[in-house]
């Protein structure tokens, strides 16, 4: 109780304070507030992970009924990762926002929304009452919306924001329906009612309920085909917001799905295969579109979708494990999913912060314009490179650990399951490998185009390295990434509690069922370290050689061409051209081409704008049709009094006439019968 009071106290005090102080200091206040809130919630979370579950029963109001706030290991895991990214985000953002000081308004709204979003996320993790959950959820959504539309004088930003708002609203509507269903059967808004529902209803209904929840949370998490808000919202938002959104906001959807898996005890096999299927599509689709983007932040947004796919594959495996009463698979699946959730929140936020540095350094996000930045901003370049390696799941970084666990799960499934079941697993394997390969492809493109070579267009403003306050949080994140990469076993041991909640369904405690093959993770770190050592050794030897032998510098070898220009080097889109040709049937690209014609050709050009096929088919087209239809109907309010009267007359005549006509017909029929 004391926790809650102080939580609310801190929150509101800081909100007022933010409204009060001037723009420069708002950031600092936000940092302090976030730190305090995070500390407060982290204490609870750590206690929980130490074994004592935190439960709080509030009386609630006449509407909500009893409100129970529970922090179990699952929530604790999410609370911790939320806090970490929230802190790095606010520290980075406080500096990032300094660039907008000339913009008069919006700072108060922005920082208040930031704190509210953080608080909302935390409450969502703890609330066990449907109404409170929905409220906290919407607080989070709305504040995130205000975070996104910080640059609200741009129509584009506003449109992206509204797009996000509406899709989140659809999500909350779906969730509302699901909760209504539960409460109309059980008459209670508490989460404890959901298992009750499941035990009373047909399995089919429970599955439908699960489906509803999956859709609701899936929109938030960005599963294909519910992902369309993501690629618009992330580029529109300020970079630290994109980092936080992609890092933790979409993860809350994952949390919801996991929570519902815990609560809805149904035929997990079907659920598992469903989730697995959707996730494979999500992952592959996400990375396929990421590859063809020009806008760096949009590219990163699509990578979030891809990673959600990987997490989903983990969850699917876990469900299959639960469905087939295989503790090992359950462990592998959920451990992989949870760990990858953490990992993604780390490296994706890092990538977005890096993108933020680039944006403020060069004031563009178009990779075709950039290049050679590693010279001007070495820190950012190295940080970005590390994050890129991590997101590609390469050793010695954290991405590899979680993907390795998921691979273990997949192979375990393939090796132990009968034929028809394992087919989807092999597809998932195929997908996962493809995702890995494409991710490498994509990030070699991104890193190469942005940081390497020479700048392709004359720099708009001389790029320069970001200040320390922006770099420190990034180095914090790198620290975490390396920690997980080199010493995974620590985190695995922590993971045992949340995963234990799932294996608990099979009556097995997590560390008991923790598969032997996972012991290798203890060595993996060592191997990764060894890799680093070997590299270091060779490099040292090489540089020793360099001293004795003579080294000189000259222009890049142009095969004899003497006047190379920056435009001649390979661009990002030419880098992926082969792939684009290959994948064209699956993508939808807007091409504008102006060929070279005539003896004295004029300026020619060729631009390609990647579109989202799913969005076109599922959102734009029906919406367009709907609006056309609606517009056709707008003759009703035509300003003619006679019509207004006629409406009433027609209404009455219909109500009177229709039954009367029916009567006449019946009368006539009877008459015929009498003849």
């Amino acid at each position, binding site marked *: 109780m004391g926790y809650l009071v102080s939580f609310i106290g801190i929150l509101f005090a800081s909100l007022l304070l933010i409204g009060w102080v001037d723009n420069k200091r708002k950031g600092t206040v936000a940092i302090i507030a976030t730190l305090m809130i995070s500390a407060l919630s982290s204490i609870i979370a750590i206690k929980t992970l130490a074994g004592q579950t935190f439960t709080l029963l509030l009386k609630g109001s006449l509407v909500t009924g009893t409100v129970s706030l529970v922090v179990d290991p699952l929530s604790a895991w999410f609370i911790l990762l939320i806090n970490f990214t929230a802190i790095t985000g606010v520290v980075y953002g406080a500096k990032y926002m300094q660039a907008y000081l000339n913009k008069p308004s919006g700072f108060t709204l922005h920082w208040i929304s930031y704190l509210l979003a953080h608080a909302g996320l935390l409450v969502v993790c703890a609330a066990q009452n449907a109404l409170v959950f929905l409220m906290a959820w919407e607080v989070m959504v709305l504040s995130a919306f205000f975070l996104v539309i910080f640059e609200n004088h741009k129509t584009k930003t506003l449109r992206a924001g509204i797009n996000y708002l509406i899709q989140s609203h659809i999500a909350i509507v779906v969730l509302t329906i699901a909760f209504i269903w539960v409460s109309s059967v059980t008459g209670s808004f508490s989460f404890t009612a959901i298992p009750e529902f499941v035990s009373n209803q047909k399995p089919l209904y429970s599955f439908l309920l699960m489906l509803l929840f999956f859709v609701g949370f899936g929109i938030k998490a960005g599963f294909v085909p519910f992902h369309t808000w993501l690629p618009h919202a992330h580029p529109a938002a300020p970079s630290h917001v994109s980092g936080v959104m992609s890092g933790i906001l979409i993860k809350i959807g994952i949390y919801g799905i996991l929570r519902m898996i815990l609560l809805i005890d149904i035929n997990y096999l079907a659920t598992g295969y469903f989730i697995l299927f959707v996730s494979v599509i999500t992952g592959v689709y996400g990375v396929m579109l990421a590859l063809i983007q020009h806008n760096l932040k949009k590219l990163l947004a699509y990578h979030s979708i891809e990673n959600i796919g990987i997490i989903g594959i983990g969850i699917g495996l876990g469900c299959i494990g639960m469905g087939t009463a295989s503790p090992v698979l359950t462990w592998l699946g959920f451990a992989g999913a949870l760990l990858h959730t953490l990992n993604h929140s780390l490296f994706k936020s890092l990538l977005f912060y890096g993108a933020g540095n680039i944006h403020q350094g060069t004031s563009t996000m178009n990779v075709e314009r950039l290049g050679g930045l*590693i010279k001007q901003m070495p820190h950012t370049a190295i940080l970005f*490179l590390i994050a890129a*390696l991590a997101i*590609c*799941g*390469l*050793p010695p970084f954290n991405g*590899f650990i979680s993907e*390795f666990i998921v691979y*273990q799960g997949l*192979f*375990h499934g393939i*090796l132990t399951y009968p*034929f028809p079941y*394992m087919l989807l697993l*092999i597809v998932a394997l*195929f997908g996962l*490998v493809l995702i890995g*390969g*494409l991710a*490498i*492809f994509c*990030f*070699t493109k991104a*890193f*190469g185009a942005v*940081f*390497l070579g*020479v700048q392709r267009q004359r720099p708009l403003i001389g790029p320069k390295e970001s200040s320390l306050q922006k770099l420190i949080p990034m180095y914090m994140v790198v620290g975490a990434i390396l920690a997980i990469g080199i010493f995974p076993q620590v985190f695995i041991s922590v993971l045992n509690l949340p995963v234990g909640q799932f294996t608990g369904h099979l009556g097995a405690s997590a560390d008991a069922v923790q598969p032997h*093959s996972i012991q*290798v993770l203890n060595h*993996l770190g060592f*191997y990764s370290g060894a*890799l680093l050592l070997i*590299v270091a050794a*060779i*490099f040292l030897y*090489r540089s020793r*050689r360099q001293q004795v*032998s*003579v*080294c*000189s*510098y*000259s*222009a*890049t*070898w*142009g*095969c004899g061409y003497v006047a*190379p220009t920056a435009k*001649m*080097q*390979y661009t990002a889109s*030419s*880098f*992926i*051209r*082969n792939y684009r040709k*290959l994948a064209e049937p699956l993508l939808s690209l807007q091409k504008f081409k102006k060929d070279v014609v005539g003896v004295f050709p004029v300026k020619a050009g060729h631009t390609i704008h990647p579109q989202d096929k799913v969005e076109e088919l599922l959102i734009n087209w029906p919406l367009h049709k709907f609006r056309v239809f609606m517009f056709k109907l707008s003759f009703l309010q035509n300003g003619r009094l006679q019509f207004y009267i006629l409406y009433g007359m027609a209404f009455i005549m219909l109500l009177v006439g229709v039954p009367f006509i029916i009567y006449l017909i019946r009368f006539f029929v009877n008459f015929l019968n009498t003849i």
Partner: protein
Amino acid sequence: MVSFVLIVLISLVFSGIVIRTKSIASGRKGPGIWQPMKDIFKLFKKGAVYSETTSIIFQIAPSIYFASVLMAIMVIPLGNSKGLISFAGDFVFFAYVLAVGKFFNIISALDTGSSFEGMGASREALFSMLAEPAFFILMGSLGLLTGYTSFHEIFMAFHFGSYVSYALGVIATFILIMICMIENSRMPVDDPKTHLELTMIHEVMILDNSGFDLGLIMHTINLKFAMYGALIANMFLGDAPMYLTIPLFLSIQVLFAVVVGILESFSARFRMNHNAQFILVLSSLSLLMFFGVLMVLGKFN
């Protein structure tokens, strides 16, 4: 341990054998077996010329490339003696470590800001990306066949399959050879003999490397060959006693080198835009193998 030493040793002469085979096949009196190594050592001693556009990435990439291959080699067992690194799912580690090297190789090519090397990098990235599923599904099906997920155990158990497993072994061998060719961008995919825009993939990536780095890269290729050769060899070794294993291993490696040489001298390079299909065929082939395994295990009926 044994495997590591052997592979490193064989890598010294591997490309020598290849070149020798090719020269014999084309009726020339070619260079000696040791010639490639001599070149490499000369390169090690030489100084280097770097492009002004390059950065630290370009400097460090070859070392990482080399190190990654060494790391990968450590995973490979020899008959009944484990590799230095061996655990369940170690081939995932194997593939990903190789990927690290590839990653740096590609970005170092991009680092030069050249109009050629980007092209090579792009193709390298695409083809290796397409080749990876084949490898994973191959290992998956082998794992399914044997019930293990580490190279050592898989190969130990593999030999005692039914006769069908030999057929599978042949398919696997073919896939591995092809993957090896793709990874080293050799004949059916790319032609190392020619230069620049004719050799579209690997050679063009390392246009700007010189001196020590070039040497490293050259030898990395040898190591890769030897590594894949070792994989192929392992499929036929089983856990024979050591005094049988080692000669068998060596002879298989030599055979592999000869095969590569013959392949290179008697086949022509695909057109670039055919490569993708060709590589995808490998994946489908490995899927075929997967179903073969299912049949063997009687899971598929």
